[in-house]
């Protein structure tokens, strides 16, 4: 019982508490405590030291163990940095948003944990919709026109997307008509066990609806637009949270239905759809990265790119699947660093336009160096983790039945890398034409420390490659019926 209390109920209670307590410091302290407890328990569960008993509709397996740890990790760092972020808001009208910031943050944690831990499609749906509801007020934090538009679009698009996913879930029940699980509850393991009995037509329809619907939340093209708008206009810690964990919460829904389809005759169909989704995401980013002049939007597109790679890895299976799971871990941490750095730049330059940001390395040397390192990390330069996970995905693709797609992926990624590099280096080095080079000293802030810790973690996890992580990921692959 303690599992559900710490992971879901406690954040929910603290969320209520935050609406009663007005003092921001107390809200922060309690939220940090919740985040720490959540992280510790997720870590203990991940290491296999504890196996908490969860009530009906919830369960723990290798897949959600990993994703829960990713969520706790991202959430902990975001909460840690939140107080100092709220002290120095970028825009004056953010004052009103502060009041309910921690309330929704805790609600976000509860909803995401519930979605990840659910082992029932209905429960997953309710919790996934709740994650949208928790994040929408946070997107509107800055209270300006862009934030309002982003919030409306995100709320509307994702609500419709999730409604589509619900149709998919209903079709899944239709696929079970006439089998022994007809009229049974929508538990994942029941469906996985009896997958071969299900009606393939309804199963395919169900996959289309769930995949397309949840794509609005994952940010897989062509349903990515609401997500990109929201990520680029939300405050940086929230953007980090969305890129690092919220997208994965939606992805787990797609992975569950994919797991059901794997042993059936509809498998090839679902696999093709995943690959198309992944390739299309990379293509869209490839096109837009030439046009984008807003660095937070660029990072949002980078999230679309990396989620596209993960989807591609899942679709290809085998070694690419292993790579995709590693990629989910590394991408989440790198995105936190990137968005926190972008937040620092936004605060100092008061603009999200690349053209207004110049000579970051001179004016904000610490932020500049971290941005440079984070850019190298996200582009897959060794020794950062993403290098190793991408190599695995590519290797899996190369030895699959569609190796030619790898050439296309490489082509897209090369241009994405070059254009992202161009934007980042313009921000870092270029001086304005009429100005003398400025130099500035920058104070060491909490966000810098967090970024450095995360960058070190990225290298250490990648180089040391802990057995427990590999073991867990191969267990996931095993659950999906893959031979390695």
């Amino acid at each position, binding site marked *: 019982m303690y599992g559900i209390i710490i992971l879901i109920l406690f954040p929910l209670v603290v969320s209520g508490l935050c609406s009663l307590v007005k003092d921001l410091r107390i809200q922060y302290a309690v939220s940090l405590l919740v985040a720490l407890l959540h992280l510790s328990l997720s870590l203990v569960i991940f290491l296999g030291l504890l196996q908490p008993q969860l009530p009906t*509709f919830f369960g723990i397996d290798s897949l959600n163990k990993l994703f829960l740890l990713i969520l706790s990790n991202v959430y902990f760092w975001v909460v840690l940095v939140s107080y100092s972020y709220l002290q120095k808001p970028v825009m004056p009208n953010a004052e009103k948003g502060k009041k309910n910031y921690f309330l929704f943050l805790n609600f976000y944690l509860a909803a995401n944990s519930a979605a990840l831990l659910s082992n*029932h499609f*209905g*429960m997953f*749906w*309710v919790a996934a*919709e*709740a994650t*949208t*509801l928790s994040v*929408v*007020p946070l997107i*509107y934090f800055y209270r300006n*026109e*862009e934030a*309002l*538009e*982003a*919030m*409306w*679009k995100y*709320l*509307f698009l994702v*609500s*419709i997307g999730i*409604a589509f996913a*619900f*149709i998919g*879930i*209903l*079709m899944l*029940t*239709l696929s079970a*008509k*006439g089998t022994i699980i007809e*009229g*049974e*509850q*929508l538990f994942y393991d029941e469906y996985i066990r009896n997958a071969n009995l299900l*009606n393939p*037509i*309804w199963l395919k329809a169900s996959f289309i609806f769930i995949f397309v619907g949840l794509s609005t939340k994952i940010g897989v093209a062509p349903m990515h637009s609401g997500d990109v*708008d929201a990520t*680029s*206009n939300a405050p940086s810690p929230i953007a980090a949270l969305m890129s690092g964990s919220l997208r994965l919460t939606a992805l787990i829904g797609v992975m569950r239905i994919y797991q059901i389809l794997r042993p059936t005759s509809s498998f090839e169909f679902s696999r093709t759809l995943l690959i198309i989704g992944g390739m299309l995401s990379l293509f869209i980013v490839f096109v*837009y990265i030439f*046009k*984008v002049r807003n660095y937070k*939007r660029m990072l949002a597109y980078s999230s679309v790119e990396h989620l596209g790679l993960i989807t591609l890895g899942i679709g290809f299976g085998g070694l690419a699947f292993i790579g995709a799971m590693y990629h989910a871990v590394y991408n989440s941490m790198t995105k936190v660093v990137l968005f926190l750095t972008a937040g620092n730049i936004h605060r100092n330059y008061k603009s999200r336009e690349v053209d207004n940001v110049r000579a970051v390395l001179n004016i904000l040397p610490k932020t500049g160096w971290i941005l440079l390192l984070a850019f190298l990390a996200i582009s897959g330069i060794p020794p950062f983790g993403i290098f190793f996970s991408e190599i695995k995905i590519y290797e899996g693709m190369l030895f699959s039945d569609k190796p030619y797609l790898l050439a296309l992926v490489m082509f897209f990624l090369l241009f994405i890398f070059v254009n992202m590099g161009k934007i980042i280096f313009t921000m870092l080095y270029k001086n304005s034409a009429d100005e003398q080079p400025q130099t500035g000293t920058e104070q060491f802030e909490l966000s810098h420390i967090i970024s450095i810790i995360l960058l070190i973690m990225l290298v250490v996890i990648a180089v040391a490659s802990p057995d427990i992580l590999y073991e867990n990921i191969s267990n996931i692959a095993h659950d999906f019926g893959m031979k390695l």
Partner: protein
Amino acid sequence: MENVLSILFCLSLFYVSITSRVKALVSVLIAQGLILVVLLMIPFIYEFSVFGIILPVTVLLVKVILIPRYINKVILDLDIKRRFEPTIQQMVFLPLVIVSMTVIFITASILSENTALDVIPFASGFSAIIVGIYIIMFRKKLIVHVCGFLILENGIFLFGTSVASDMPMMIEIGILLDVFVVVFLMGIALNKIKSTFEGFEVTHLGRLKD
């Protein structure tokens, strides 16, 4: 009985396609909510259970009372004009709806040969989903988009009852609660949009693009 109610539900969709008044949409939402409540009450004719009554009562509360009242309040508060201009004419909209419905009904009857499903409720539910999407696509006013979203949700609900999915009641109520909060948040957002953009049409939302 289910079929009669589903056909009534379909008729409400035709009304939605030809009306150009915001209030009429809200009345349709109430009517659809009532149809769903009656549909959920049918099993009680044969067997009454106190526990089972919770779901119809919640649907009544959320879909018939709370949401329409809230939308009416938003309309009054924001002083939204009663009529809305479509981006395509009603004369095009109605045939589009009729053609889509025909296709859905035929497809459903073909599908029912392989799978046991109630064709009429199934197809009616799916038609409502499609009509909801059309409303969102072809209307400019944001409040009408919210109504379109709710018609879509009602369609999913009808669709859900037709496939006889056994969702546990706790989850059904969770779903209703989620929908209500979505509408509530949309109402708040509309309020902000009115004060920020001086209007609530989708054409005002064009700042974010590459």
